[in-house]
């Protein structure tokens, strides 16, 4: 019962580099989300998807891109990393709208 799996757990990037944060879920959930959590703050929604092939922007999408080619996977792409993207990133999934979301363990990203 893996649930939501995120890789990597930690990463240090230099300014201007790019990377992809991986997220996969094995619960056959239609809905998937990417959140970021800055120190002392709540989680802010970056992007979400209501099903394979469908993605939409959340509250803080700038500097990120996503794709949803399968139900299981929802990778988050950072292009041209900036120090402002230093954060902890959480991927989550839920069965339908109105149900609780299950979260991965998070990816701690530092941009220097």
């Amino acid at each position, binding site marked *: 019962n893996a649930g939501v799996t995120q890789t990597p757990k930690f990463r240090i990037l230099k300014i201007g580099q790019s990377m992809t944060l991986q997220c996969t879920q094995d619960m056959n959930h239609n809905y998937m989300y990417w959140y970021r959590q800055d120190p002392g703050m709540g*989680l802010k929604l970056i992007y979400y998807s209501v099903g394979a092939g469908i993605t939409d922007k959340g509250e803080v999408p700038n500097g990120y891109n996503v794709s949803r080619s399968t139900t299981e996977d929802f990778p988050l792409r950072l292009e041209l990393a900036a120090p402002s993207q230093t954060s902890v990133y959480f991927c989550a999934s839920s069965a339908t709208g109105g149900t609780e979301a299950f979260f991965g363990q998070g990816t701690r990203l530092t941009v220097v």
Partner: protein
Amino acid sequence: DQQVKQNSPSLSVQEGRISILNCDYTNSMFDYFLWYKKYPAEGPTFLISISSIKDKNEDGRFTVFLNKSAKHLSLHIVPSQPGDSAVYFCAATSLNNAGNMLTFGGGTRLMVKP
């Protein structure tokens, strides 16, 4: 503009006593509320929820109260245990929201002292 606020960043409680965590919201479209618990280096885990058609929901030691007129909800933990020490996030959504986008508060760090 924060739509969900948790005004107490931290709370310290003695083991066995009641812990009360508070949450306020401003968006009147919110009709479903959730509490998540987060341990260090882990993702948040769902704890308890409440629909706006109710004013109370109970699950073991955890009870959530909703006051719609005041746009306020609270989480009561009785009795508090050291293992309850964690950061608690309040979240809200509108069930009419197609993406079930949760709006989170900033969290309250609960410390339960033995």
